[in-house]
């Protein structure tokens, strides 16, 4: 009994120690958002509280951050909508219906491969493609590339949800006279709504977090939050306070996701590895 208690204390010390290593630095950096620049630079632990960084970041003339937030939201919402519609339909067909084996194999194999290849090997090509048709820097270019980039993950995730539907349910609907499309709309779709919400949340987070694509395909007008934050850090005179404030704002979706839907995050992140 004492041995068990001892090992329990040890185990908890280790994992909560690691939790502290995650939380400590994060909170330290984020706390800078509420400090005056002078306190940040001198490393004062206890310092006066201020909203000035947020004011500067969001409402000053030199800052586009509000526009960046809006861009991230627009791109995130639009690309997520595309991904979820496309992925859910394809996942249903690939999982429940008789599709020619080579079609299945080609689509899923390519999705898996693309999912694992470095994004950076594609952005150069995308840049040139969109530039040559005059679409570089537009919402369209970023939205479509974000969509294709997150499609494999959403596809695998939705396949795991659709695959969990009993096969007999689909067969029952076929016996009851449904065509494939009707099976999807009347049976599958209402039953995987929960899964779609999960996939939506994750896809949005990935789009919101993306840096490599946005860095190379956005213009000043379509710049997203991560690119803006990176720009802060690259300036000669780094505005630490505003940077911290921007960072804090940029992790709000992630925080919401953790609070509302812990369970499916790991599942989504591993989608593609298991399939």
């Amino acid at each position, binding site marked *: 009994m004492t041995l068990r208690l001892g090992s329990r204390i040890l185990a908890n010390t280790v994992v909560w120690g690691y939790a502290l290593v995650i939380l400590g630095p994060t909170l330290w950096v984020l706390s800078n958002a509420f400090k005056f620049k002078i306190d940040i630079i001198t490393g004062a632990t206890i310092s006066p509280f201020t909203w000035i960084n947020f004011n500067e970041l969001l409402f000053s003339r030199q800052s586009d951050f509000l526009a960046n937030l809006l861009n991230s939201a627009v791109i995130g919402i639009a690309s997520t909508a595309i991904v979820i519609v496309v992925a859910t339909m394809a996942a249903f067909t690939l999982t429940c219906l008789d599709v020619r084996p080579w079609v299945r194999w080609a689509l899923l194999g390519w999705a898996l491969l693309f999912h694992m290849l470095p994004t950076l090997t594609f952005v150069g090509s995308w840049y040139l493609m969109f530039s040559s048709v005059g679409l570089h820097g537009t919402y369209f270019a970023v939205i479509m590339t974000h969509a294709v980039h997150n499609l494999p993950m959403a596809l695998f995730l939705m396949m795991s949800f659709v695959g969990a539907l*009993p096969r*007999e349910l689909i067969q029952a609907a076929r016996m009851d006279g449904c065509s494939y499309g009707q099976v999807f709309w009347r049976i599958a779709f209402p039953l995987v709504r929960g899964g779609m919400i999960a996939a939506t949340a994750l896809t949005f987070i990935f789009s919101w977090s993306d840096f490599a694509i946005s860095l190379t395909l956005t213009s000043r007008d379509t710049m997203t939050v991560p690119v803006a934050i990176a720009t802060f850090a690259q300036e000669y005179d780094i505005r630490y306070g505003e940077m911290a404030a921007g960072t804090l704002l940029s992790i709000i979706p992630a925080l919401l996701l953790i609070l509302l839907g812990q369970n499916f995050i790991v599942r989504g992140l591993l989608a593609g590895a298991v399939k």
Partner: protein
Amino acid sequence: MANVTVQGFQKFYGSLEVIPPLDLEIRTGEFVVLVGPSGSGKSTLLRMIAGLEKIDAGTVSIDGEDITGRDPGDRDMAMVFQSYALYPHMTVAENMTFALRMRGTGDAVIRERLAEALRMLSLEGYENRKPAQLSGGQRQRVAMGRAIVRQPRVFLFDEPLSNLDAKLRARTRLELRELHDRLGATSIFVTHDQIEAMTMADRIVLLDRGRIQQIGSPREIYEKPRNRFVASFIGSPEINLLEGGLHVDGDTMLFNGLTLPGRKMEMPTGSEYTLGIRPEAFDVAPEPLAGTVPLAIRAVEYTGSDVFVFGTIDAGPLTVKLPAEGHALRDGIGAGAFIHVRPTAEGWHLFDRSGLRVANT
């Protein structure tokens, strides 16, 4: 009217032939049970008839009308699934009327048929519940109701009772058969349970590895098994099968020293036969009688209504079933003791080397 005719059905998984060419005729109003061990292809066959599995060769027709290429929803067949496959997001009423609504049947007809089915299945008052709020037995009835309201030409059942507990299963068996008789429908019922097959079927189709082993009434199947497989699949405890040689001594036929009473046959004697005797088909006595052999008892099982005696004779191991009540041997039998047994005149079957039943036995 619903004659179902299956002709030359064939099914491959890759290069593996799961259903060799197969013909089957099911007559109007008949209750046919497809039975066999798992992997025998019975479910596949049912799904091929339903149109849910691709047919690699052959045709299926109803009343002479070829429906082979037709969509499962356009065959006028209804199916009750093993898992019931109720739509979890629909109420009982919505589940039961779904097929009619998909066909665009009029509201009045739908309401009338729903009410009738609910009454028939004692589901009145449950029509607004979701499947998750029902007991196992109620779900099973909803699944049946979903088939009934369609008034299909053919009912297909895929082990619909296997998820019920033993008591409910026995009761539902009866109800289902009554329902079939009342509706005058044609039913094809798949099960791996020989009791279900024996109790419900007009005709049993016994399958093994995709091949029909025998088609016949329960009585024919039990009393005249066409081959070793059928004999051993049907009957509990399993039929005794003894390997050995047959020879004729004057007027008696002997199988490894065991006298086979009743019938005398013209057949080549030899050593490559299998003798099948059902456990209940023995005369048993405490003392030797004419033609008996001693059975050395290994174990005795008492089930309440019956006593099963497990033992050995010279020809091999043997199971003998005795009624528990009113038998002379009731007491005094136990491991280590001897009793004396001989097959009854009509109770034995002879199978040749290929497993086929020898004619005239």
